[in-house]
């Protein structure tokens, strides 16, 4: 079989993820719950009344940290529920929203500890990045990449393992990765190439849409267009992130069980990584 290019490979992987999503449309409820949670938490933290009484500068940083950690928790919780059901979908069985969330509730301790751990690591890297010069920034950016690669399977490990220890989850995620793809990995690509093409196509569509706005359409026309673009963008982002999460679950099964789940092709799974050129 001739070797596929990065785009063709990414496209095939995206198609397989899309097939899973189409067969189990109910899975889309998870990212929607995550979005609703984000909106609710944002309005709670940044809604009217929060800044009213005292100097906002006194509270801004702790508030941002609290917001970030709560967001991490919400994201991890819905991701665990989502990935649990995706793994069931790979077996050809029916998925269930209730079962996914019930599973996440049972793993609440691990989710809480992981959210706190990952949230603090993220905050630390970001905070240090802002304090150092260009060299420090580069080093920390690389640390960020290493961290994101090492923790790539943390959610899936959380589903398969009883442990709630975040260091143990991180260790198992990175060893699963290293045993399969050795030490040449320099980044996770996933189905990013296709996502980039989709975003590019979306931007072209936006420019085409803008060119249709005529002054005689008045402010309402502009508002309607902006709302449509905003909604389309949100849908595109939710879809892209759901497809990538589905693919990541397939990649984890391939890495830990040695076999790619249907409808993925084992020969294409290695294309998910950016590899060091020798």
């Amino acid at each position, binding site marked *: 079989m001739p070797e596929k290019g990065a785009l063709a490979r990414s496209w095939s992987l995206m198609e397989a993820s899309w097939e899973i999503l189409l067969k189990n449309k109910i899975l889309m409820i998870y990212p929607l719950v995550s979005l609703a949670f984000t909106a609710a938490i944002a309005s709670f933290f940044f809604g009217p009344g929060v800044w009213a009484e005292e100097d906002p500068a006194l509270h801004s940083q702790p508030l941002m940290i609290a917001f970030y950690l709560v967001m991490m928790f919400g994201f991890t919780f819905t991701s665990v529920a989502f990935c649990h059901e995706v793994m069931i979908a790979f077996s050809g069985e029916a998925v269930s929203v209730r079962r996914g969330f019930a599973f996440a509730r049972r793993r609440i301790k691990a989710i809480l500890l992981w959210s706190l751990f990952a949230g603090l690591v993220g905050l630390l890297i970001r905070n240090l990045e802002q304090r150092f010069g260009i060299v420090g920034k580069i080093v920390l950016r690389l640390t960020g990449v290493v961290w994101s690669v090492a923790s790539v399977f943390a959610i899936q490990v959380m589903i398969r393992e009883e442990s709630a220890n975040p260091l143990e989850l991180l260790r198992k995620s990175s060893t699963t990765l290293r045993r399969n793809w050795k030490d040449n990995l320099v980044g996770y690509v996933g189905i990013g190439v296709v996502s980039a093409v989709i975003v590019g196509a979306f931007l072209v569509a936006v420019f085409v849409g803008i060119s249709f706005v005529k002054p005689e359409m008045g402010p309402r026309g502009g508002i309607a267009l902006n709302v449509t673009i905003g909604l389309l963008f949100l849908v595109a982002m939710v879809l892209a992130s759901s497809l990538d999460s589905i693919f990541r679950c397939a990649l984890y099964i391939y890495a830990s*069980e040695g076999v790619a789940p249907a409808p993925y092709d084992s020969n294409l799974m290695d294309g998910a990584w950016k590899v060091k050129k020798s």
Partner: protein
Amino acid sequence: MDALIKDWTVEFHSGIPVYRQIMNHVAEAIARGALAEGAQLPTIRMLHQALKVNPNTVAKAYRELEHMGLISSQRGSGSFVAPAQERAVLSTKEKKARINALFARMTAEAKAYGIQVEEIVTHISRRKSHA
């Protein structure tokens, strides 16, 4: 069949792919006589549910075991332990290759558990002298 599944768990992060662990478990059960000639193996569905693994993983393990001549699959009726004569058709070279592969898997698993190869050798010698 139930005895085979009972207390059987797989280790997802040991470094040994799960399909290999399934192969090893079945091969070992056949070798020590826990699975007799002609005994039926659990169906793919049964085993994937019991071990909480993907059905493709069980299917691959069974395909490999069939390829090794240890089991035979009959469409519609399941997989069975192959008769001993069928297993004996291996040439000496093939048998050695399988023992080598088994040793490689054993040392890899031992390494994952932090066990030294020397300890395994001692263990084997001890078992041999008791036999």
